[in-house]
Each structure stands twice: as structure tokens, then as C-alpha cells.
């Protein structure tokens, strides 16, 4: 019987890599897959399953499948990618300032004037209560630098 190459761990690692990269680049754009990154968790689960099956094949039936050296390395890399994903979505993103002095419900919104994309100055107090829009939703966002 000829020994076959064991591609499963490599495929598993690539799935893990896709699971990591597709969150900031794509799935985080949509609230349904952003707030709880279930698609990416599912992709990681598939990646780990493939890595696991590949590892079992490499050591369970070494006479048929290769990968005794590569499979453990690829599994370790997959775990590192999974760990980085958890760090990215649950640790790093929670390092936010306390913002204890931020305006609270019931307080007047501090007035300001800032330029819009056409460099025209826009004043908050000039927006609230106007005939075209009486309420204002301020959305502070991180920006795209």
C-alpha cells in the first residue's frame, strides 16, 4: 500500500487563517455577524476539525498517511490563529477608556462646531430643533485613518 500525502492539516490551517482574516475585512461590516462573530467561530470550528482529523490520520494510520512532522506544527499554528482571534475580538477591543465624564442622559449635549466633508462648518445647536430635523443622533466612530 502506498503512503498518501496528508493534506487535511494544511487545509485546516488555511480555513483557520480565513476565519481570522475574514472578520476584520468582511464579516465585521455587518452587525449580524459583527456583534457576535458566529460565522468566524464556525469557520474556526471547521478548521480545527480538519486539523484534528489530519492529526489523527497522521498518527493513527502512519502506514497510510504522511504528515507526522507537519501535522503537529500546523495544529499548533492553528491554535495560535484561534488565540489571536480571541485576543482581537475579546481582549484588545475591550481596552477602551472609562469615559466617566462623558455627557449623561438628562444633560445638555455640549455644543460644538466642526467641518463636514465639504469643509463647511456645522454647529450642533444649529441642527437640533430645526424644521428639517428636530433630533440628532451623534455617532462617534473610530475612523479609518
Amino acid at each position, binding site marked *: 500500500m502506498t503512503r498518501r500525502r496528508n493534506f487535511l492539516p494544511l487545509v485546516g490551517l488555511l480555513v483557520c487563517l480565513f476565519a481570522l482574516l475574514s472578520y476584520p475585512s468582511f464579516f465585521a461590516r455587518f452587525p449580524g455577524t459583527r456583534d457576535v462573530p458566529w460565522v468566524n467561530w464556525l469557520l474556526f470550528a471547521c478548521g480545527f476539525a480538519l486539523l484534528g482529523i489530519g492529526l489523527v490520520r497522521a498518527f493513527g494510520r502512519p502506514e497510510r498517511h504522511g504528515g507526522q512532522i507537519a501535522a503537529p506544527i500546523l495544529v499548533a499554528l492553528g491554535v495560535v490563529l484561534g488565540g489571536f482571534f480571541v485576543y482581537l475580538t475579546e481582549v484588545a477591543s475591550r481596552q477602551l477608556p472609562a*469615559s466617566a465624564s462623558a455627557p*449623561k*442622559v*438628562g444633560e445638555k*449635549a455640549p455644543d460644538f462646531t466642526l467641518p463636514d466633508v*465639504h469643509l463647511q462648518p456645522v454647529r450642533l445647536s444649529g441642527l437640533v430643533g430645526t424644521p428639517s430635523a428636530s433630533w440628532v443622533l451623534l455617532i*462617534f*466612530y*473610530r*475612523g479609518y485613518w
Partner: protein
Amino acid sequence: MRSFQERLHDFDARRIRLVAISVDPPETTGEHVAKMGWTYTFLSDPRAEVIRRYDLLHPDGGEGGDIARPAEFLIDPGGTIRWTDMTENYWVRARPETVLEAFDQLAAAAAPPSSPP
């Protein structure tokens, strides 16, 4: 940002003006907004003066230095804040439907339906 654009008609119907603020300069924001097709108001606070006044500065939070932490404030016609959201995780942000629900509850509380005779 995209999800708010998709629900813009719901905000227009309630006469809520959407105003987004970041440290990005007007040119950068203008290019990005035009590319994405977003039509509500985007303001630039490159020196983070307003962001500081609202105590939302995230020092060195971005690749370019200081940025704003995500936060939303719903302001009534009198200029008073009626609802806020301060996320604990910047991947988890207020959804347009959450803001619309909060507005509808505020509006219902301000003008209760007349009781039947």
C-alpha cells in the same frame, strides 16, 4: 455606518439627523463616504477637541494616534441627551434598530395615547 445608511429612511421619517464624528480629516472622510455611498452628515475632529470635550478620547487607539472610542448620543430638539450607548467592546456597537426602538419608547412616553372615553 453602513447599517445606519440602510435605515436612513427610518431616521428621516422620525426627523432624526444622523451626525457621525471621527478624527479623520474631511478629505479622507469625504473620499470614503463617497465611495461607500453614505449620505448623512460626517464631521471631522482631527485634533479630537470635541472628542475630548465628550470624554471619548482613546489615546493611541488607532494607527495614527489618538482616536474616538465608539459612542452614540440621541439628542432631543431642546439639546438634551435622551439616550446614549457606550460600548465596552469596539466590535459591538449600537445598531440602528436599537436607536429607533429607544426613540419610539421616548416618543411614546412623552405623548401617551389618549385613553378611550
